[in-house]
């Protein structure tokens, strides 16, 4: 490996040949500002179109300024990253970008998290001398994501996420010059595109061009309605990230404070999606064993591998792209929907409230959940099992609006019965977590023996595609794991080609799993934040006394009192679903 030496702001740095100036500078703590460049190095994610020109630096002996994100460092280079020439160029570029940007920061939902706004603050931009035509483009609202392209600065991070990391291909840069925008094919609505609502575009957008559909006002309205009983469920990944919105160190688990905050916001019952995650394991684990058993007996009607189906972005992805494989994923609903189905039957009966007067709110790290809860098959006579889904970010705003001093809140517990959970359910938030939880239960159900070591380290980690063989007392079970839809596609292509070696595959649409979901606090490309969230989730699991889903006492009670047995009649009715061929919905609509 050839090493080179260069000087940046009078500091010497040695880097591998081929390193960009930007990365060489970051290595010695010089953070050259960028707007389009985006990197999550541990995930092999990088966007460097060299388009914004904010990162220009002065290279001694070079006539023009060099874009540091796209210029390779050379041996002996002497670089200045902040002389008057550089700073003036950056200011000019920034002013030009802002000159075609709506000045609506006061009412923009991205305000406070906007990289363009932060940059303008950093450079002390006080006037925009450039006046001219401004871009005008229609606002496009889908069930999960809003595109407000007038705020787009053409950094193309969303395009990179959508095409390279997710291989969804919903977004592309279209048109040319001043008219260029990032849009779906034929500039149709996102809703008519193959978008999976994974929200990764939203999580990397530097401005307010891509944002989530905010349902917190609907929740507020429900909470103010005296006729309604309003209950809330919180996904596993939310507790590992919510604290960041209040200035806590990434990876600080705030489960207790979150429950306390939700109670103070006025929810009648504060429940946990983790409960439903345990329920998911009961059904999905039973389904896996059922399919596995039949398969091993040579039943040709049974297909393996079985794929997990908790992730709504992933469900959208295979409905669009793999309609020939609809019988491969588990039929188990996602925890969010299982919770809703149980809440509006079992729990509604328990408290004697009609389902129409019971409002189920979910707090999710995810934007696809907003779409999922609106799907027709999850409604009974038009009444959805889950009424509103809000993101981790929306919950944080909500708490701040309600004058709740989050940091001073005591740790409180969830309510019962739908708040009881095990360590197996909390790890649903991490890539590999669902299948690990499934293994803990499936192992014991299959072998009839007690699983002594519940930590399956082989299933953990951040590699895009992982595999492990778990010994089910003599039966080697091949497990595949993918996070990020490009990796999911690789495994699915294998299944389609009949070459998959796995018995079960877990897929999560977002890099890192739900902890890196599109509704989580913005990480600005810092993948260390994701690692810390993941560690916090595993710590929470380890701290629990019960760590296997089938040992959750409330789950046992639920089956005793109401459901009967996993995969039973009632389970099929309430906890399982089916999938649809949506490949044609991608087609062009003429009407």
């Amino acid at each position, binding site marked *: 490996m050839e090493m080179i030496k260069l000087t940046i702001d009078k500091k010497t740095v040695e880097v591998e040949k081929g390193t960009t100036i930007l990365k060489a500078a970051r290595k010695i703590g010089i953070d050259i500002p960028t707007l389009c460049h985006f990197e999550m190095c541990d995930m092999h994610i990088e966007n460097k179109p060299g388009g914004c020109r904010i990162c220009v630096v002065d290279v001694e002996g070079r006539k023009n300024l060099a874009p540091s994100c796209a210029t390779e460092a050379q041996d002996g280079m002497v670089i200045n990253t902040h002389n008057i020439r550089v700073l003036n160029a950056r200011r000019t570029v920034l002013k030009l970008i802002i000159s075609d940007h709506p000045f609506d920061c006061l009412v923009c939902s991205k305000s406070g998290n906007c990289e363009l706004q932060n940059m303008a603050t950093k450079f002390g931009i006080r006037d925009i001398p450039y006046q001219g035509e401004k871009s005008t483009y229609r606002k496009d609202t889908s069930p999960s994501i809003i595109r407000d392209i007038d705020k787009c600065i053409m950094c193309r991070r969303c395009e990179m996420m959508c095409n390279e990391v997710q291989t969804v*291909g919903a977004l592309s840069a*279209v048109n040319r010059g001043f008219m260029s925008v990032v849009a779906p*094919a034929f500039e149709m609505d996102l809703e008519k595109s193959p978008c999976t609502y994974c929200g990764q575009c939203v999580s990397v957008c530097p401005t307010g061009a891509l944002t989530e559909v905010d349902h917190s006002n609907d929740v507020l309205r429900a909470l103010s309605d005296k006729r309604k009983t309003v209950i809330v469920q919180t996904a596993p990944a939310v507790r590992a990230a919510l604290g960041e919105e209040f200035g806590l160190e990434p990876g600080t688990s705030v489960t207790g404070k979150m429950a306390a905050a939700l109670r103070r916001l006025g929810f009648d019952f504060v429940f946990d999606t983790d409960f439903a995650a345990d329920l998911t394991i009961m059904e999905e684990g039973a389904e896996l064993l059922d399919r596995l058993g039949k398969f091993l007996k040579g039943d040709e009607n049974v297909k393996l591998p079985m794929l997990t189906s908790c992730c709504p972005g992933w469900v959208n992805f295979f409905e669009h792209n793999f309609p020939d494989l609809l019988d491969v994923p588990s039929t188990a609903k996602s925890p969010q929907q299982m919770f809703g189905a149980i809440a509006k039957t079992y729990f509604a009966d328990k408290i004697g409230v009609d389902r129409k007067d019971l409002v189920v709110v979910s707090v999710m790290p995810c934007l696809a959940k907003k779409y999922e809860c609106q799907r027709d098959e999850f409604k009974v006579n038009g009444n959805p099992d889950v009424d509103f889904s809000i993101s981790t970010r929306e919950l944080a705003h909500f708490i701040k609006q309600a004058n709740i001093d989050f940091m001073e809140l005591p740790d409180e517990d969830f309510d019962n019965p739908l708040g009881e959970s095990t360590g197996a359910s909390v790890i649903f938030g991490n890539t590999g977590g669902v299948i690990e939880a499934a293994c803990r239960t499936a192992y014991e159900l299959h072998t009839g023996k007690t699983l002594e070591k519940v930590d399956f380290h082989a299933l953990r980690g951040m590699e895009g595609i992982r595999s492990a063989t778990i010994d089910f007392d003599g039966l080697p079970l091949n497990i595949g794991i993918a996070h990020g839809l490009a990796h999911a596609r690789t495994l699915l292509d294998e299944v389609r080609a009949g070459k998959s070696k796995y018995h079960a595959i877990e897929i999560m649409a977002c890099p890192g799993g739900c902890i890196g979901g599109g509704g989580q606090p913005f990480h600005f490309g810092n993948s260390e934040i994701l690692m810390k969230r993941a560690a916090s989730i595993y710590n929470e699991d380890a701290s629990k006394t019960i760590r296997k889903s089938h040992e959750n006492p409330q789950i046992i009670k639920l089956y005793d009192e109401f459901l009967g047995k996993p995969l039973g009649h009632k389970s099929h009715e309430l906890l399982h679903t089916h999938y649809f061929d949506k*490949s044609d919905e991608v*087609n*062009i609509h003429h009407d």
Partner: protein
Amino acid sequence: MDMISKSLTDNTPTKPIEKIVSKPVAAEIIQELENKSALYTYAAADKGKVKVKIKLSEDKIAKIHEICEAFNNEAGELINVLHQTQHTFGYLPAEVQEVIAHRLNVSTAHVYGVVTFYSYFTMTPKGRFPISICTGTACYVRGAEKVLEEFKKQLGINVGQTSADGKFSLSCLRCVGACGLAPVILVGEKVYGRVSPEGVKAILDNYTDK
């Protein structure tokens, strides 16, 4: 004197160009797209049993497949495929782009991005005799705008439009590399140099449908 410079200096219109794009193809496609009931299915490449429904007749789909095949269905050949397809069909409607995307295994959004980036590609059918006015610097200062105005007046259409009879369409481009003959216009692939507003009618009269 080679062919191109001969055609450039020769201002007297030669014999009319018979056919630039095959007249029936574009018209046929328009008809097919308007016929809402007609839906044909075809298999997407390398996608197992996935069938895609599209509002194009089977022979058009087969033709697109043939073009893609000629470029080994390679995603990197997208621009060449689009060129060839536009040459064959006269334009690139959404449905055609959709078939190409499936065939080359790229997203439709990406194909649309390329089509809208290059001004050569068009999603509206051009006239049988597409007219392009060079409005590059040299042509512009030597009166291209006046020539353009005259074309608009004679044809009753604006830039980017096609005459009602589908005969002529009007577009602007920047520089055909014949600045010495400015102002320059093209009809189909034929280049006319030193065009004056007065000469416009004579040029148009050369193109008759037969």
